[in-house]
């Protein structure tokens, strides 16, 4: 980027937030971005069928084989390449996870706006409803829904999104209450802008976007964890389809025979992916805080 003289002076006075960030936070963000890009990349690859081996390509001559050059993560009990199944496993949570994120962000923003901007009775009602959702532990509610309807991953993720609404809403509400008395909101209202425009453009878009991005990042980490946990324990994504939880579950049957990598590689992938999204969320949080400090 080209800098004019004055700009450079300004930069010298107040370095870019990225530079002011602690080194650890910068490393967190970089690591998180790498993970996010890898997950999206794997998803897109598996979508167009760009896989190292065929997804269901059984090879009975190479069952439970240790990692090698041909199969970097080894093969499973039916001779299928584990790396291939890990890549394809992103399909199990990616779109459902996005659905959960969208529900949480849209619902949370709406509830936050209703509570923070309008106040009064609407505030009481929304916070009552959100508290009701907050009172039920997530997995218990998920099991109730699984018992009532079928254990479909999209259905599960709709509920996960709904259970995240209170968190997002409380952040948005806090932000709105903080901004409400500010001059620019009053100025916008005095200019005759409609409530909707003030809410969506001046509050949500200009001031809550960082918050929403962080929540989306954390939401993807959570989607991975929930999909893996439910699949591991038998609800969620079912066998012929690849999923990270299924891989660990299948691999655990062979640990006693000394086959460690089968479960360990998918489990490590789960852990590192979740770690990436959590670190990205926290790092971005600190970055946006620095930015706000000016």
């Amino acid at each position: 980027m080209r800098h004019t003289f004055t700009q450079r002076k300004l930069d010298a006075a107040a370095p870019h937030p990225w530079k002011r960030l602690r080194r650890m936070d910068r490393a967190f963000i970089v690591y998180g971005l790498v993970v996010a890009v890898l997950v999206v990349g794997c998803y897109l690859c598996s979508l167009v069928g760009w896989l190292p081996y065929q997804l269901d390509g059984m090879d009975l001559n190479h069952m439970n084989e240790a990692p090698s050059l041909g199969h970097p993560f080894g093969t499973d009990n039916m001779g299928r390449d584990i790396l291939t199944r890990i890549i394809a496993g992103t399909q199990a949570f990616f779109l459902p996870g996005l659905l959960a994120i969208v529900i949480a962000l849209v619902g949370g923003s709406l509830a936050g706006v209703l509570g923070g901007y309008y106040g009064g009775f609407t505030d009481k009602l929304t916070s009552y409803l959100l508290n009701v959702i907050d009172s039920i532990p997530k997995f218990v509610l998920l099991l109730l829904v699984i018992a009532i309807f079928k254990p479909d991953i999209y259905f599960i993720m709709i509920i996960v999104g709904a259970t995240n609404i209170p968190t997002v809403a409380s952040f948005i509400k806090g932000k709105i209450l903080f901004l409400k008395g500010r001059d620019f909101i009053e100025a916008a209202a005095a200019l005759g802008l409609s409530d909707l425009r003030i809410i969506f453009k001046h509050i949500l878009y200009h001031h809550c976007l960082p918050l929403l991005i962080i929540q989306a990042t954390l939401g993807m980490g959570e989607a991975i964890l929930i999909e893996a946990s439910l699949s591991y324990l038998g609800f969620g994504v079912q066998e012929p389809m690849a999923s990270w939880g299924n891989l660990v579950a299948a691999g655990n049957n062979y640990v006693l025979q000394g086959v460690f990598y089968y479960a360990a590689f998918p489990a490590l992938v789960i852990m590192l992916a979740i770690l990436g999204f959590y670190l990205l969320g926290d790092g971005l949080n600190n970055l946006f805080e620095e930015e706000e400090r000016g």
Partner: protein
Amino acid sequence: MKIAFKYLRYLSSEIVISLALLMGVSLLAFMLLQAAPGSPMDMYIQAGSISAEELDAARQELGVQGGVIKQYLIYAGKLCRGDFGFSAETGKPVLPVLLITTWRTLKLTIGAMLVTLLIAVPIALFSTLGSRARGSALLSVIAYLLSSAPMFWLGYLVIFGVTRTYFSFTGERVMPLVSVNPWFILLPIVVLGASNGTVSEVIRYIKEQLSRVLREDYIRTARAKGSSVIKHAFKEGFLIPVVNVMAAKVPYVLSGAVIVEQVFNYEGLGNLAWVSAQNRDYAVILGIVIFAAILVRLADLLKNLVYLLVNPRLTAR
């Protein structure tokens, strides 16, 4: 005397709010059930051949006649009398089972929260009060790793390690470890406490709040006149944040308990929820939802009690 009265008034208003929330929870669960494809009566129809009169009698007995609202009111009335209905699977009343499993889950949960605190508090204190050495970065990376380790995998590793060490492992299915040695209850507690995903958040919250309080003027005054900073910062900078964050994390810990109980075959609320979800045992799972919500609300009440003891302003309303 007057103060005691104010305390009572504050607490009773909190209790009323909690009861209202519990009613909301039961209504929500009930409405979800109403949206189910087919009716709960199908369970009975499938269970065996049943005549139309018998079905009507069963409806009468179970209180599933009339409109949705009437049904809910009947159900809520029964709940208030402590009647949680009968399990469709075993035919036994649900309440005794719920009480036993809730107690077992409570042990697990409280233990796990203590473990979380044991991990989180030293790290938070060290990285706030200690020098900004490399150690604190390393510790928070470890906390993040623990938080993102999938519990089912960590639990399996622990079970594997223990079964390898302590007794020969023959069966396909893991036995309930607690029945082998009561001390094995510590294993699910440690796994749940260490990796339910809240450790890093707890650390971050305590760190934020403590360093905010340490920047306050009254701490500077305390430091200037040479009195103990720790003593002045303890209530607002440590006690309240810890109570606050732990109360907020109760639903997460209970949620994690579902996974851990399943992995360790520990017969608590989560395990029961799992079994009854598989059997579509609606009465049991509704009861579990309500009991879990009761635990969450109790934790919230406990938090408010601590607030009350620490912060006299609350009663001034």
